[in-house]
């Protein structure tokens, strides 16, 4: 029954398991943590390698000798302008303060998504499962469409772009400098198991904007009594400080770290409980209340605390979430680090709901229909929009300046090699 027990598959299975366990690219010939392969933690998750046989060439590094001979930072800009002999990287990027975007997140940040047409018989066709192999080898996450590091066009038609695409638009020298270091089930506690997969060389690379967004699993679990396992403010303080010290020893000077607060998840029950789940839409026989109850009974609920008919439990979960958000706020206002500035930002889902309703939408349309828990693509991109606007208003230096050479970069290098 275990296909990996077949001798000729044992080696590849072992490699795949290691890749998933460490959140590192499965196919990475030069071991620089960047890949030319999409899934299995490849370029769907972090900037595509432009030379997978040279470990000194990878997205995010400062250019080697102004990239006269090769594109050492994979931003598609290299060579010398024949008109004046000046290297293009020097001409177009010097002084523009390029920077990368790195997300330390959970399934929401990785954009966990199960397409509803996988479960809806009336919509099912030969095309329904074409994306299943990609989804499975990306752990049912779709980071290439996520609100922080997404680089593919939105499937929901919403015009808002990811934070990465906005940084790229602001300064084309940021091309391909994104990393989605997220994992389903991630929390302040287990981040230490995969934070090593973050790729940044303090001496050689550009500064980065790091978003710490563990938005649920510190209060979410599937236990029949979820409270004992919830993270306490003291635990969170200690763990986040460990993470920040790790970042301070890895991030290039001039970086920025943003601690993202936790949401008030009572929104889920309030807006979904009496709506039909995709499995119940045909015969009108399964509501989200029943679905949540089934998940909790099996103890496989992603968040029993908020996905519960017990109002007291939902309220308690939100209270703990708020305490943890206040802890993050306290860290951001009282702790200082040499290599990065530290900020806090609320996960103000209500503002997203208000914006969506202004556009004629319904709150339930912001949640993944199959799991009834994760923010969907629309919500993620609206959150990215709000994040960007807040920073532009309050801390514009975090985003860097508009690069006046963007049009020339486009003229000379087109799409810079794409993604």
């Amino acid at each position, binding site marked *: *029954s275990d*296909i990996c027990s077949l001798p000729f598959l044992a080696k590849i299975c072992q490699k795949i398991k290691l890749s998933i366990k460490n959140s590192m690219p499965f196919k990475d010939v030069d071991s620089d943590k960047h890949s030319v392969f999409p899934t299995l933690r490849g370029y769907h998750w972090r900037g595509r390698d432009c030379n997978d046989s040279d470990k000194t060439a990878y997205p995010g590094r400062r250019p080697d000798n102004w990239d006269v001979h090769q594109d050492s930072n994979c931003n598609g800009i290299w060579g010398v302008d024949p008109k004046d002999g000046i290297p293009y990287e020097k001409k177009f990027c010097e002084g523009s303060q390029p920077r990368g975007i790195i997300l330390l997140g959970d399934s929401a940040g990785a954009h966990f998504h199960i397409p509803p047409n996988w*479960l809806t*018989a*009336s919509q*099912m*066709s*030969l095309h*329904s*499962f*074409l994306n*299943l*192999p990609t989804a*499975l*080898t990306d752990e049912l996450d779709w980071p290439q469409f996520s609100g922080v590091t997404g680089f593919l066009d939105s499937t929901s038609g919403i015009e808002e772009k990811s934070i990465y695409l906005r940084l790229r638009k602001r300064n084309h020298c940021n091309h391909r400098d994104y990393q989605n270091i997220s994992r389903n089930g991630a929390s302040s506690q287990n981040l230490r198991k995969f934070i090593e997969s973050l790729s940044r060389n303090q001496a050689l690379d550009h500064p980065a904007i790091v978003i710490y967004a563990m938005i649920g699993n510190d209060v979410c679990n*599937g236990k029949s009594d979820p409270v004992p396992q919830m993270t306490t403010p003291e635990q969170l303080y200690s763990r986040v400080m460990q993470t920040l010290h790790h970042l301070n020893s890895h991030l290039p000077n001039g970086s920025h770290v943003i601690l993202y607060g936790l949401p008030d998840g009572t929104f889920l029950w309030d807006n979904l409980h009496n709506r039909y789940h995709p*499995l119940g839409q*045909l*015969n009108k*026989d*399964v509501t989200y209340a*029943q*679905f949540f109850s*089934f*998940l909790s*009974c*099996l*103890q*496989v609920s992603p968040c029993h605390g908020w996905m519960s008919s017990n109002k007291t439990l939902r309220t308690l979960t939100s209270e703990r979430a708020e305490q943890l958000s206040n802890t993050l706020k306290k860290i951001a206002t009282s702790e200082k680090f040499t290599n990065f500035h530290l900020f806090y930002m609320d996960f103000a889902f209500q503002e997203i709901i208000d914006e969506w309703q202004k556009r004629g939408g319904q709150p339930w349309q912001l949640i993944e229909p199959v799991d009834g828990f994760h923010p969907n693509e629309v919500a993620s991109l609206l959150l990215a929009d709000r994040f960007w606007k807040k920073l532009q208003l309050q801390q514009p230096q975090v985003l860097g300046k508009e690069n006046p050479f963007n049009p020339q970069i486009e003229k000379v290098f087109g799409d810079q090699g794409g993604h």
Partner: protein
Amino acid sequence: HPNGHSCLGCVAVVSVIEQLAQVHNTSIQGSMERLCGYLPEKLFLKTTCDLVVHMFGSDIIKLLGAHMNADVVCHVLDFCKQDPGQPQCHLYPLPKEAWKFTLEKGRQIVKKSSSLKYPRSS
């Protein structure tokens, strides 16, 4: 629940099989073939589907044919199990007749089955 995920998976798959038959007005056999036909060959997905149908298909046909829902089917096939002291987990409204009676009836139906004894967390 040690086999919570396999129970959830089983109920979802059997629900889809049942609803495909309903939507396309076909037999359960036809619905299972249709579902496997929708799956790509990559990652052995279609092969795995055919294998699962080969192993469990005939019992699923009998049980759904006896108007049992996905909850009952997956308990009879042992993907869902109610351990002593654990609550009875079900997605759909409970059947009108007593759960234990329905379960026992289902077990009788498959008792004569040629299928293997179901490994617990298969």
